[in-house]
């Protein structure tokens, strides 16, 4: 540790204070401009946004430098790092604890705001200062929390010789990327929120900006999706209970904004195409961000007991609660006061139309979100009113969410085939006849396979097949239509161009396809899992779901900063080897498990090694069918969103006259 590193940390601390002061300016500049009549003053918000983003980046770099240079005179570094920690995790330890996570939140928000400022200078310069002032208020709230109650730059003097190490559970690649992805999602929804508030305050016609927030919402949504998927993936191979989702309050905290965000990206489309749902969209935007804040509050205050047992600090909890109260009261207050200016311009023509099915989508997702919210807060309510302590577990969620999810799959199967305004049900059914035929066959096969014992599986098979085949037939029909008008093209070119000429629609369809793939994975692994817990001596065999595994003893070794005990299980029929691991991280004296998994597309063979009892070991083996489909589906969703996002750039090049004129003028 040298003096440069020491002084850098003080510089970081100073930068935080400076960023706080500048976001104060950023937040109030437009108001000052209005009060004083000096219009130029409003531009301070724009400059402030760039400066705060830059300052936070510098502060983040200083923090990472403190971790990498092992500067244990910084309390946060001493608590979350260690000289034995591999450098990859030393960097990631920045968000391994409370203070750093909040810092990462603010940092990401600073970067988003900076991008918004850059984007807005040409596209919506008049409203930009107000937009950035809203962001400035939010930033102020978070920077205040960081600066006064959870400062990662706080010192610990005299410095300890070594640090307490990063929580071993977090020393995993999945866990390293999970928090930033979630935050990119949570914070991403702050931009649509800023648009909504700006629109309410400045009477900005939402038809002018709803198209702009669609992309922001989509980007936030896809990051949130990635974050949630990574969390599940990590839980699956690290926690060693064979599952990936436990309906834990903190998981729910990320799932609720995801559900409403999904409703939002659909309802925006209705407003764009049919000039409806203006008020509802503003409500969804505010609520989605409110749920992101609620998520942060639930995770960071320790109000609910959860597997994510973070250090509980009542001061911070109180701060976030007050901050959240202020944000919610002001934003919903503005919504109630000014909302009537944002009314739908058109109304329904028919109950059987694309827009009415979008409404169903919104109803289902909003209800799903309300159910999750209710169950997440239910323990608090019973505790407030009765002396009972209860937790709401998986049975409730499965009973409530599975039917809603199945309805959503049904909706996905035919809603995209239904035209806008008014549709002929007969035509839609005819379009779907192949899909129905295939779905009946698949459902019947499932019924035979489970001998009518698993109704959920039969229905899910029916619906997922319906969805997949109807998407495929719709695409094929679109290609054939194109072939009729462009007879000279060969089939491959037609197929490509059909996709590329309507990226937004087919991007959405790819996302739906990803959801269908996930649904297959959830059905398979949720309903057809087999497991067995046995005590095994070396040489013993265990049979599970047709797989015979032989226990070949254990292996011990030391790696990086941990000691590992590995069990060796060899598959007798297929020859692969499973190496479930238990690790001990000496600094925190904490044991962790690593499941041994052999995957192929159709099943995971999953083993966990437990305690030694006399001369045998407790071994827990699972066969999880189709789990890989879940991760594959997540990947497809990301591809779909990216494909959809490529649309606008294309449109601007081809359809906008003024743009192409400007481009040719430059050329």
């Amino acid at each position, binding site marked *: 540790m040298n003096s440069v590193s020491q002084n850098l940390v003080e510089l970081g601390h100073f930068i935080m204070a400076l960023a706080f002061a500048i976001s104060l300016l950023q937040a109030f500049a437009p108001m000052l401009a209005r009060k004083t009549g000096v219009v130029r003053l409003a531009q301070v918000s724009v400059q402030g946004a760039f400066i705060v983003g830059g300052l936070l980046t510098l502060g983040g770099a200083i923090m990472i430098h403190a971790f990498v240079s092992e500067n244990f005179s910084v309390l946060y570094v001493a608590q979350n790092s260690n000289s034995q920690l591999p450098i990859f995790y030393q960097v990631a330890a920045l968000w391994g604890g409370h203070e750093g996570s909040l810092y990462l939140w603010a940092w990401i928000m600073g970067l988003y705001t900076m991008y918004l400022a850059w984007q807005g200078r040409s596209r919506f310069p008049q409203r930009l200062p107000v937009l950035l002032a809203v962001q400035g208020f939010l930033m102020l709230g978070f920077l205040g929390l960081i600066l006064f109650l959870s400062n990662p730059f706080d010192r610990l003097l005299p410095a300890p010789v070594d640090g307490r190490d990063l929580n071993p559970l977090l020393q995993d690649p999945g866990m390293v990327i999970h928090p930033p992805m979630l935050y990119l999602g949570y914070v991403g929804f702050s931009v649509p929120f800023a648009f909504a508030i700006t629109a309410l305050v400045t009477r900005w016609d939402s038809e002018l900006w709803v198209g702009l927030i669609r992309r922001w919402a989509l980007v936030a949504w896809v990051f949130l999706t990635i974050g949630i998927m990574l969390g599940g993936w990590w839980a699956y191979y690290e926690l060693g209970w064979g599952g990936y989702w436990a309906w834990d309050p903190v998981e729910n905290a990320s799932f609720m904004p995801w559900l409403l965000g999904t409703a939002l990206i659909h309802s925006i489309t209705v407003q764009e195409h049919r000039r409806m749902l203006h008020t509802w969209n503003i409500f969804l935007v505010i609520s989605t961000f409110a749920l992101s804040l*609620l998520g942060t509050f639930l995770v960071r205050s320790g*109000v609910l007991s959860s597997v994510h047992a973070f250090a509980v600090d009542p001061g911070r909890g*109180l701060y976030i*609660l007050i901050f*959240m109260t202020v944000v919610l009261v002001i934003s919903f207050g503005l919504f*109630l006061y000014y909302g009537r200016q944002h009314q739908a311009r058109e109304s329904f023509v028919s109950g059987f139309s694309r827009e009415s099915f979008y409404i169903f989508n919104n109803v289902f997702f909003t209800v799903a979100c309300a159910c999750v919210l209710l169950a997440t*807060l239910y323990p*608090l309510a019973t505790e407030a009113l009765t002396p009972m302590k209860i937790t709401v577990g998986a049975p409730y969620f499965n009973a409530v969410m599975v039917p809603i999810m199945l309805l959503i799959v049904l909706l996905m199967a035919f809603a995209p085939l239904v035209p806008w305004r008014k549709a002929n049900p007969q035509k839609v059914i005819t379009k779907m006849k192949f899909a129905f035929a295939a779905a009946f066959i698949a459902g019947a096969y499932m019924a035979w396979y489970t001998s009518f014992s698993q109704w959920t599986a039969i229905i899910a098979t029916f619906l997922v097949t319906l969805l997949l085949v109807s998407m495929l037939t719709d695409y094929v029909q679109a290609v054939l239509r194109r072939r009729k008008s462009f007879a000279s093209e060969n089939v491959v070119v037609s197929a490509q161009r059909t996709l590329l000429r309507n990226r937004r629609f087919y991007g959405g369809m790819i996302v739906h396809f990803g959801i269908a793939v996930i649904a297959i994975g959830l059905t398979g692994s949720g309903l057809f899992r087999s497991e067995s817990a046995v005590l095994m001596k070396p040489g013993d065999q265990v049979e599970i779901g047709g797989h015979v595994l032989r226990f070949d003893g254990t292996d011990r070794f030391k790696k990086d900063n941990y000691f590992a005990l590995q069990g060796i299980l060899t598959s007798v029929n297929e020859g692969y080897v499973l190496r479930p691991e238990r690790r001990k991280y000496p600094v925190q*004296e904490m044991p962790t498990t690593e499941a041994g998994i052999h995957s192929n597309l159709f099943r995971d063979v999953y083993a966990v090694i437990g305690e030694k009892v006399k001369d045998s070991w407790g071994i827990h083996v699972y066969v999880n069918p189709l789990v890989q489909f879940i991760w594959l589906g997540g990947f497809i969703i990301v591809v779909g969103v990216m494909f959809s996002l490529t649309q606008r750039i294309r449109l601007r090049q081809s359809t906008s006259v003024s743009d192409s004129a400007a481009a040719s003028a430059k050329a």
Partner: protein
Amino acid sequence: MKQWAYVLVPALLLLLALLSFGLTNDPRYIPSPLIGKPFPQLSGIDLNGNKVILGKVKDRPLVINVWASWCAACRTEHRSFLRGAQKYSRQVEFVGVNYKDELLNGKRWLSTLGDPYEWSFFDNKGRAGLELGVYGVPETFFVNQQGVIIHKITGPVTDASLADAIAMFSKGSK
């Protein structure tokens, strides 16, 4: 917008009221069904191999602390027990339950960090833990002179929570 207000305002108030209640509430507090019930007596050995009965009251009420050398939170509460043992050893008997641990690790832990317990029950199979419904280490049970559990602390104790709980013994006897 009126219909919106009828739904939104109560929902928002309810949410904020619940959350502020939640903040004053300790999520780690888990009421034990054992409170008010006699402590289940268990025979076994202590860390030195002597035959003992856990939960048998001799002359003073018992403070029974479930700990393990692998448990990080036990380390944080250990100092409170060391101080408590000095202060209250006349009023109460401090007994440890060494839960799911290796004998040597447990002994080494006590010799390096100090031993606040008069003796520690050796529970390497977690049998006592099962009988007591231990959720996670550390947990501390307060057993009065009649052998009845009057209080339980889940998670690490502090000087204050230990003093409060011990004060409950004298209140109960009056």
